[in-house]
Structures are given as structure tokens and as C-alpha cells.
């Protein structure tokens, strides 16, 4: 098993840092899957009610100038590591103005992900900061639990409103209730709703637009006005919204191009899935990136709270 990679481009480095920060905000531990052409951060927490699971994909060639890896065997050319996500984001904090970043898999009495950061300095001599992040190598028999989840066909998918507004609304709703109902239709309308003994609050967003559906036949005959609804845990949704670090400078100077204010630079869509059985249905919040230079694909699933 071997892995070593290097980032030299500042934009790529910052982007990688943001992705790792987002993951640290979402979960304590995550799985890092290394394969010859991509890196995946995986989070699967399906056991608990309303658990969050995440699948984040980084095309290696978009980030790394050098990338070498050798998996467990020729036919299973992959490495799965478990690590504390905060350790990685903390290590990358020092990399803010770095000249280069190297990551490699080492064995220092125990397996480590060694992050060496080459920093700029006033004199010509360079300084290197090294972090050893302890990791657990995940044996092959457990790999099957960590495969890419399939996103079920959505009844309705809709673009999310400006995240800052949505986050503010959801934050206030969290003070009042634990559960949130998301409703959306194919007419670009999205409602966030809470209902308690004391109060019912509904926020109506309209003219959001609907992304073209992946499977054509799924909702062709669906009434445009008909709402699909899911019940989710507010805290989990807020965690997801908080993880999407809003970049206000970009959002204000290019409001039309970046209406969603996501760091990942692309659009985020929220696919709402509703099926006959309550247990099956879920809400997946997908964050997609169209910027091919540093594409990161994040998929996050929030399971519906069973009622």
C-alpha cells in the first residue's frame, strides 16, 4: 500500500482546505478512499434516525500535481482509511499561504497520513510543517459498506434559495422545533414548515427553478403544483447548511452567476424523494460543481425521521 500526492497550486490548495473544513463540520470521523483517479470522503451514519450520510468526490487530477498510489492489490487498487476529520482540517489550517502541500501514507509505529506543508518565508530558506494524522486502515471485508450510495429517483428536485436566507430561517425554526417539513413542487416553489403546539411557521420560496430530472419518465405526468414533502431533523439540515461555507464577497460581486453562494461554486440542488413507505423516503441534498478545473462532488443524504 502506497500513497503520496502533492498540491502546488494555491487555488487547488484553498479548495481542498474548504472541502476538508466542510467535512469536519459535518462529522467527527470520516473515511478517505483513495483510488488511482479520485479521492472520496465518505460518511455513512445511516443507523440512527435522520442520520447524515455523505459522499464527496474529488477528481485527483483537478487537485494534485503529483499523485501516486498503489492499492492493497492489483485487482483491488484502492485504499480505505478512517480518520478524525478535524485533524485533517486543523493540519490544513497551517497551509493557508503555503507554497506546496504533500500528503503521504506513512508508518510511524502506527499508520499515519503525513501532511507536510512547505511555507513561504522571508529568507530564502524554506520552512516545512509536518502533521502526522493517525489513521486506521479499513480491511477489505468492510469495503462493501462504504460504496457510493445510489440517489433514489426524485419526485421533485428544485434549486435551493440563497443559502444565507435559508440558513437564517432554519436556524430560527430550530429554536422552536426539532423537525422540519420540506415541501417542493415542479413549479419552483419550496416551503419550509414547522408545526408545534404553540406555533406553525411556513416560509414560502418561489421562482427557484427546477433542474432537469435525471430520469425522464419519473415525473412527467406529475402535476406541477403538487407538493412532495419530507420530514427531517432540523439539526442535521443546519449542519449541512453550516458546512457549505458561504463566500460573501463572491456572492455580492457576482450575484447572478453565484446565486447560491456556495464555496463549491456550482449549484446546489435539493432532491426531495417521496415514496409510498415512509421508511424508504429520504431527502438528499446534493451539491454539484460545474467548474471542471477543481470539481468536487458532494452528496449528502438526510434520512427522513420516521413518524
Amino acid at each position: 500500500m502506497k500513497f503520496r500526492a502533492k498540491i502546488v497550486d494555491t487555488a487547488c490548495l484553498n479548495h481542498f482546505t474548504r472541502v476538508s473544513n466542510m467535512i469536519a463540520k459535518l462529522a467527527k470521523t470520516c473515511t478517505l478512499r483513495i483510488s488511482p483517479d479520485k479521492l472520496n470522503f465518505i460518511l455513512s451514519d445511516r443507523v440512527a434516525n435522520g442520520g447524515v450520510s455523505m459522499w464527496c468526490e474529488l477528481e485527483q487530477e483537478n487537485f494534485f500535481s503529483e499523485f501516486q498510489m498503489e492499492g492493497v492489490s492489483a485487482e483491488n487498487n484502492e485504499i480505505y482509511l478512517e480518520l478524525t476529520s478535524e485533524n485533517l482540517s486543523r493540519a490544513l489550517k497551517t497551509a493557508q499561504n503555503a507554497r506546496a502541500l504533500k500528503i503521504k501514507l506513512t508508518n510511524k509505529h502506527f499508520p499515519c497520513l503525513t501532511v507536510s506543508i512547505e511555507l513561504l518565508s522571508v529568507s530564502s530558506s524554506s520552512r516545512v510543517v509536518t502533521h502526522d494524522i493517525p489513521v486506521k486502515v479499513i480491511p477489505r471485508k468492510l469495503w462493501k459498506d462504504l460504496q457510493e450510495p445510489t440517489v433514489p429517483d426524485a419526485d421533485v428536485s428544485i434549486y435551493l434559495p440563497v443559502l444565507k436566507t435559508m440558513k437564517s430561517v432554519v436556524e430560527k425554526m430550530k429554536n422552536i422545533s426539532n423537525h422540519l417539513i420540506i415541501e417542493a413542487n415542479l413549479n419552483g416553489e419550496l416551503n419550509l414548515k414547522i408545526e408545534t403546539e404553540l406555533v406553525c411557521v411556513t416560509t414560502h420560496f418561489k421562482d427557484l427553478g427546477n433542474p432537469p430530472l435525471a430520469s425522464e419518465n419519473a415525473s412527467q405526468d406529475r402535476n406541477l403544483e403538487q407538493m412532495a414533502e419530507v420530514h427531517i431533523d432540523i439539526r442535521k439540515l443546519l449542519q449541512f447548511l453550516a458546512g457549505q461555507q458561504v463566500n460573501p464577497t463572491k456572492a455580492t460581486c457576482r450575484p447572478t452567476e453565484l446565486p447560491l453562494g456556495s464555496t463549491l461554486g456550482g449549484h446546489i440542488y435539493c432532491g426531495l424523494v417521496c415514496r409510498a413507505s415512509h421508511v424508504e423516503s429520504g431527502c438528499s441534498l446534493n451539491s454539484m460543481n460545474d467548474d471542471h478545473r477543481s470539481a468536487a462532488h458532494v452528496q449528502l443524504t438526510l434520512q427522513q425521521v420516521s413518524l
Partner: protein
Amino acid sequence: MPLLTQRIPDENDYCLVASLDNVRNLSTILKAIHFREHATCFATKNGIKVTVENAKCVQANAFIQAGIFQEFRVQEESVTFRINLTVLLDCLSIFGSSPVPVFVSIAGTFTALRMCYQGYGYPLMLFLEEGGVVTVCKINTQEPEETLDFDFCSTNVINKIILQSEGLREAFSELDMTSEVLQITMSPDKPYFRLSTFGNAGSSHLDYPKDSDLMELFHCNETQVNRYKISLLKPSTKALVLSCKVSIRTDNRGFLSLQYMIRNEDGQICFVEYYCCPDEEVPDS
């Protein structure tokens, strides 16, 4: 549009309708009296009075006069209901409570509010709008409770001081909370106006000379020394930080009235008032 018209019953069905272009003109004032979960609201054609009480000893009233609202209609002589103030404030600030930064404060960035109440047994309806996004809140109202009557009459007022709030702000935010009481001395002679605490670390006295720049009015007839539970007075700091002037009055029974003048974002003046009863008789010194 069909969404809204569909849900609103006929306008005449409501006994209270109020609209506001900037919801912060209401929420700020309500925050000044938010030290208990529940509040009682009284609406008359002059405006709305919101009352919060604690321990039958302290009462805070916020007055939002009809002129603050862009539209204000009360169909009956008076409309009274009790409401969960925490929930109301969460709803009013659903689009964010932080003030709009000056450089983007163009018209349209404010949250507009329309508030409707159909009468006894009905929920209070709030329609909030910001940037085309609409939030509808339906807050259940409760049986109004009788509020205390402090019978604080201006003819019985013995001592009265009007101070610029900045003069009290620091004093109140740094009150020694280990002291059980705050002792207020008001006198035509020295020390004129004194705040005292008696805490674990010792006593502290804060004197305001009567010719201080902060003193707008000093009208004391006789020496009064009264003690008030510090835990009851501390919540008034919320109103103090928002206000520009404060009037401090005591009557012949030693009851304290604190009136705060608060200027809202549109430059209009609102009042918040706290009444507190004295803690105990002070032995003559």
C-alpha cells in the same frame, strides 16, 4: 399571490390589523422587555402595549404607538391576548436579526410585517416578507392573565431624575450580582443620586453629581433610600442598552419607575417602562 389571498379571511374579520415596513421597529422594542417567556398584549386604537411580569414584583411595559405602524386598525375598543414572547421574537426575526449593514441598506432589504388577529381563541397571524420570500406564522394565543396594577401615579412622585442612558449603561452592566439588592439613594442634598451594592467582595457606591452633563433633569424633594432586588432590576439592562434617555422616579411608597426612551431605525420614539416594588424597609441611618 393566490397563496396569500387564499388564506386570509375577509379583512373585516380581524379585530386587529397592523402593518410595518421594517419589522425591527417592533422586534427591538419587544427584545427590551424579553426577560420572561410570556407576555400580555393590549391593543387599542392608540397602539399596542406589551406587558411582561415577574414574581409579582416587577413589570415591564413596551408601548408601540399606532404611528409606528404604516397601517393600524383595531375594530374593538380593546383587544387583549397572552402570547409566548420567545416564539414571537423568533418569528419576527426569522429572516435574520442582525442589523442591515449601512452600505447595502437600500429600500427592500427590510423585512415587512403584517400582523392580524381575529379575536379570542384565534391565533396571531404574522406575514413576513423579505426579498419576495414570504413567511406565514400562526402563533397560538392564550388566555390573558390579569396584570399587576402598580398604581404609580405622577402626583405621588417624590423624586425624579432624567439621565442620558450612557451614564447608567456601564453601571448596570457591571452591577455586582453577588449583592442581593441594589440600593438607590435620591436626595436634594449630597450624595444626590447614588447606586449602592453590598456584595461578597464588599460594598460599592456610585454617585452622580446633580450638575453632571449626563443629568438632564434633577428634581428631588426629599431624601429617599430604597432597596430593590438586583435580580429583578438586572433584566432592565436590555432596555437600557437600546435607549437614549432614562427617567428614574420613585413615589411615596418607594416604588420605582424606570422609563426608557428608545429611538428606532426610522428615528421615531418609543417608550419602555419598568416598575419595581421596594425590597424592604431600610433602617434609618
